[in-house]
């Protein structure tokens, strides 16, 4: 009904209505092609239903394949000299990949057992969101990390289904009416905290092309390299300790390992699926891939409209920022095209 926000119901129908949009599905883009003037002339894609290689041409090319895939396409495309990766004169394509810093902890609070049934449905996250709050402590040098995290909470009395509401270690193996009573007792007594924090880009977190491995279409695949800095690790430890204290202050029990080491606190890179960077924007063509309008320095009519241009990654989910940046990029693209600058 179009009541939810998604591209298939909100953005695509009006774009299709203009008659200027063709959607080609099952197209696996391999590379951007250039014309003799060194401008982007289109892309080569593989039709995944037939395996056939196909070219499409355009006055401008916009890559919006998701951060890492757009970087992969650039690395698989050739620059005007026929040798180097496309748009990579800075050497920054694939560099500064970021994810969100993630930490979590789950607990159970006896005070929440057997509460009278009441309606706690609504927006997710228990109607509660805690933005980063320890600026003063950080300013006073009391924290061993820069940047911050927000807290999302879970639990409450959501619509059940698809999961067992009464784990064995709580029911002690009950069955029959006793099990149903136990399920009613424990439902709503579990709490969950998740931290989502800012990662600072660093030289050790990047992707390049695997020299050996290709995908089933013969296109070289991405290879990822990763090393958190102490800022991210200490932030995750701080978050996990904060969550343990919250649960225990409520008289609850932490249900996961109270391992506060770096490895025991931070979630794996890529797990939060907020991967951004890989073709960062900037003010200097020598140190960035594209400008603030997401237009590559090297090829005027090539734009990167996903998370790849992020030069930093705040603790918030990236989608809305991507949309705002792309809006501006598209206005710029249209303006420049009208002026004949592309």
């Amino acid at each position, binding site marked *: 009904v179009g009541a939810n926000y998604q591209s298939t119901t909100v953005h695509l129908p009006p774009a299709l209505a203009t008659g200027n949009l063709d959607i080609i599905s099952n197209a696996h883009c391999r590379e951007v092609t250039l014309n003799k003037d060194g401008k982007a002339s289109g892309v080569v894609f593989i039709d995944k239903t037939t395996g056939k290689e196909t070219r499409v041409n355009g006055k401008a090319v916009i890559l919006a394949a998701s951060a890492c895939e757009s970087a992969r396409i650039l690395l698989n495309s050739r620059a005007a000299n026929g040798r180097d990766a496309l748009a990579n004169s800075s050497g920054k394509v694939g560099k500064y990949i970021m994810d969100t810093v993630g930490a*979590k902890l*789950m607990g159970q609070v006896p*005070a*929440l057992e057997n*509460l*009278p*049934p*009441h*309606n*706690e*449905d*609504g927006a997710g996250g228990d109607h509660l969101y805690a933005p980063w709050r320890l600026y003063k402590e950080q300013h006073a040098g009391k924290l061993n990390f820069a940047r911050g995290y927000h807290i999302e909470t*879970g*639990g409450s*009395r*959501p*619509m*059940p*289904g*698809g*999961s*067992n*509401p*009464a*784990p*064995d*270690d709580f029911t*002690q*193996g*009950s*069955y*029959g*009416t006793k*099990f*149903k*009573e136990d*399920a*009613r007792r424990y*439902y*709503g007594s*579990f709490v*969950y905290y*998740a931290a989502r924090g800012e990662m600072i880009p660093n030289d050790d977190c990047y992707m390049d092309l695997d020299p050996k491995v290709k*995908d*089933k279409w013969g296109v070289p695949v991405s290879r990822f390299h990763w090393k958190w800095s102490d800022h991210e690790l200490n932030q995750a430890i701080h978050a996990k300790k904060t969550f343990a204290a919250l649960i225990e202050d409520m008289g609850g029990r932490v249900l996961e390992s109270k391992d506060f080491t770096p490895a025991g606190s931070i979630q794996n890179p890529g797990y939060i699926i907020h991967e951004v960077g890989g073709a960062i924007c900037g003010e200097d063509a020598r140190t960035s891939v594209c400008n603030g309008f997401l237009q590559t320095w090297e090829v005027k009519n090539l734009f990167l409209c996903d998370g790849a241009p992020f030069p930093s990654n705040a603790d918030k989910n990236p989608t809305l920022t991507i949309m705002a940046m792309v809006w501006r990029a598209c206005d710029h693209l249209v303006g420049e095209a009208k002026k004949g600058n592309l």
Partner: protein
Amino acid sequence: VSDELKPVPLNVKGVRVGPLSRREAMQWVMSAVAASSLPARTLAQEKNPPPATPAEEGRNSAPQEEAAKVPDPNTNRGYGTDPKLLKMYKPGEFWPLTFNASQKKTATALADVILPKDNLGPAASEVGVVAMLDEWISAPYPQQVSDRPVIVEGLAWVDAESKKRFRKTFAELSGEQHRAICDDVCFVPKARAEHTSAAEFFSRFRSLCAAAYYATPPGWEALGYVGNVALERFDGPPQDVLDRLGVTQTVK
């Protein structure tokens, strides 16, 4: 609707509820698969899920084997196309179902021992739990594929044990006889060594039955879930809940 399930209409808050359709059962399987990484699901997962038993080829009738392959990351081969959730499939049409008549009978009896008809709601089999269990263990996704031998072998154990002790199938036993067997296997840490596998099966079976049961409106009522209704206004948590927790509503 599975052929052996007798529709028992229930009336929950004015909504007529029968056994779940094949489409609803599939949606449940698919949504549970999709949601398996979310916190709410993690909460309910078993602390010690039973180890996956290697699937035995040809244990049941042959056609399942093709559908039930775990994707191999080295070959780019997946498990095929997911069902279309808006299409009405006949039972077994998209992926073949697993239970034969006697397995279904045993599963029904055991599910109803675990979730009986009582003052908290209907029995498991009245709301389609066994049909959903069959869908679950027949689906081609990794978790489901590893659950299948656990459930199939466990049900075989339940019947063999019933015959050994009482010379009858599990479905034919009295309540007292049901309890005699279930008490021995209902909790892994307290089960005797020779019952470990059976107890692991029981734990998984109970977990899947509960996951299915509490996905139904009668299950919601049994659990005390009262959401998903339109509200003209929201007054915050009720006073008796606030009193129990010793807190005061400060936001108006």
